[in-house]
């Protein structure tokens, strides 16, 4: 389960109106919503520093007290260096979410503009862009992200760029396919004849048809990006110490799984819930409708 599952999420419109998914989407959205608000408000609810260390409190639970007897302000206990798990988690969520969101937004913008360009122009422009996209699809995405983080030093920017490079293909393919049929519609022809600009035509004709598919794909892309960030953290190519990140938090706490299982479980659980929420939002079984669409697209 990783970045490279860039299976096209081309939901046929009728699939969206399935009776079961609204509830799932509500559950997914509320999971994601609560984690996002934790990331945004966590430090405001309980101020603290994710970097501050109390070495002798390492791996203690939430009942650990300072030497002076005050109850420590770490509701989830302490990590292996005596840092508050709660504050690290809040910061990690914020970082992972912003990198993933940044990459997805960037990929969406690039993907849609190139996709619409390809659909609109056709000809060699379309063929060239499709070729590039298909070829990118033929490379393991993790490899691409790894390569980018070698070329640039390992910073959030490198991760963001690498992920965008992998993710845009998805949006390109989606918008090219939907764009092609929408551009051929009589409505858009009329708009053009009436002299409306490109932006207007995009906003009023193209986007409404694309939006549901795109939002689904964005949620799915977010999930993949988060998984990739965590996996990279796990092979030590992610965000450098001491900045908290979900994947590196797991790696760090892994050796202590028997001593402090709850400490390890916290980032694991948060990652899992976040991914679950995003996948539920994106329709969970997005894959299921995929293969049929690919087969259809080939014909």
């Amino acid at each position, binding site marked *: 389960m990783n970045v490279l599952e860039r299976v096209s999420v081309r939901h046929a419109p009728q699939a969206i109106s399935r009776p079961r998914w609204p509830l799932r989407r509500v559950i997914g959205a509320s999971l994601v919503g609560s984690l996002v608000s934790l990331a945004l408000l966590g430090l405001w609810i309980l101020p603290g520093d994710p970097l501050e260390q109390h070495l002798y409190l390492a791996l203690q639970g939430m009942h650990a007290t300072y030497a002076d007897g005050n109850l420590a302000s770490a509701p989830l206990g302490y990590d292996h260096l005596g840092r508050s798990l709660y504050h690290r988690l809040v910061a990690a969520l914020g970082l992972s979410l912003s990198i993933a969101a940044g990459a997805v937004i960037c990929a969406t913008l690039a993907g849609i503009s190139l996709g619409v360009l390809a659909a609109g122009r056709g000809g060699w422009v379309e063929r060239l862009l499709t070729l590039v996209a298909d070829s990118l699809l033929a490379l393991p995405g993790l490899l691409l992200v790894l390569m980018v983080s070698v070329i640039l030093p390992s910073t959030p920017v490198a991760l963001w760029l690498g992920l965008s490079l992998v993710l845009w293909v998805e949006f390109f393919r989606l918008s090219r396919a939907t764009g092609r049929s929408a551009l051929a519609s009589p409505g858009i022809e009329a708009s053009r004849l009436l002299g409306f600009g490109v932006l207007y035509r995009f906003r009023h004709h193209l986007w409404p048809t694309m939006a549901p598919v795109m939002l689904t794909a964005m949620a799915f892309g977010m999930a993949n990006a988060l998984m990739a960030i965590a996996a990279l953290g796990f092979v030590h190519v992610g965000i450098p110490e001491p900045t908290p990140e979900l994947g590196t938090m797991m790696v760090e706490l892994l050796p202590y799984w028997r001593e402090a299982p709850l400490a390890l479980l916290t980032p694991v659980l948060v990652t899992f819930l976040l991914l679950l929420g995003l996948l539920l939002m994106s329709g969970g079984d997005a*894959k299921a409708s995929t293969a049929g669409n690919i087969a259809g697209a080939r014909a």
Partner: protein
Amino acid sequence: MNISSRLLQLVMVVLMVGGASFLMMQSLPGDASWRIAAGRYGYDALDAAAAASVRAEMGMEASGGLSFLYWLGDILRLELGTSLITGEPVWNEIRHQLGNSLSLAGAALGLSFLIGPPLGLLAGLRAGGLLDRSLLAICSLLRAIPQFLLALVLILLIAVEMGLLPAAGHGEAKHFILPALTLALGLAAVSARLARDAMAAVTQTAFHDFARWKGLSNAQTFWRHGLRHVALPLVTYLGLQFVTLVEGVVVIESIFGWPGIGHALVHAIFSRDVPMVQGTALVLGIGFVVINLLVDLLGRQLDPRGVK
């Protein structure tokens, strides 16, 4: 997609991997000879003399604007060069490691087909039933667990707590099971859903009703009419699974200490062994294109309707 465009794709993949590798070589932070010496000799033995000898050996000082063209020429002739770390030809290294990875990937794929589609088919026959709903829940849960976490959970449960299988290592059949299972569970979660949806769709078609109406049993209907329709999306998805596998292999091999191409890739990237990175990426990319070509052909066999 036809064969000529697949070929074009192949050329493009080669160009892109070559370009990226060249860029990597050019923009290595710091002096590449230090990195290479580090990869070769380890931290206790690394010093200026070691780096200088690497520099002398590689002729690293020379790198001009024309070098990209030479570089490209080498790649197009599939001259992958020798590993900067071991001095072995990249081809030899890849052959050795690719075999290990392929056997692992094959085992995973086989296992996922034993687990996923049968469950999916059963669920699809009674869409909305108990099996269907619990399968959906399990698949969603499985898909939300990153692979490395799944691997850890399996190691802790099966190898350490129960002591049934080795935690890591390679060489014997029993070493296959845990890494293959980790990869397979992720794949099965998707192929089960695919099979389920395809099966559910088939049960609603007119020809399926007709087959039942003319008196065929459930099993007969399935073998005569259902299977072919279910197989098509599964086979199509197979090509895409390859990429998923490759990525999984990078993470899984590093956890289980499996001497495959994923492990080699991560190491090559760490020690900036650019010929190795380029070689592995090329092999993986070309492999993917070829597999997709085969999948196209197989898909046409299964569903001749699209062919004019």
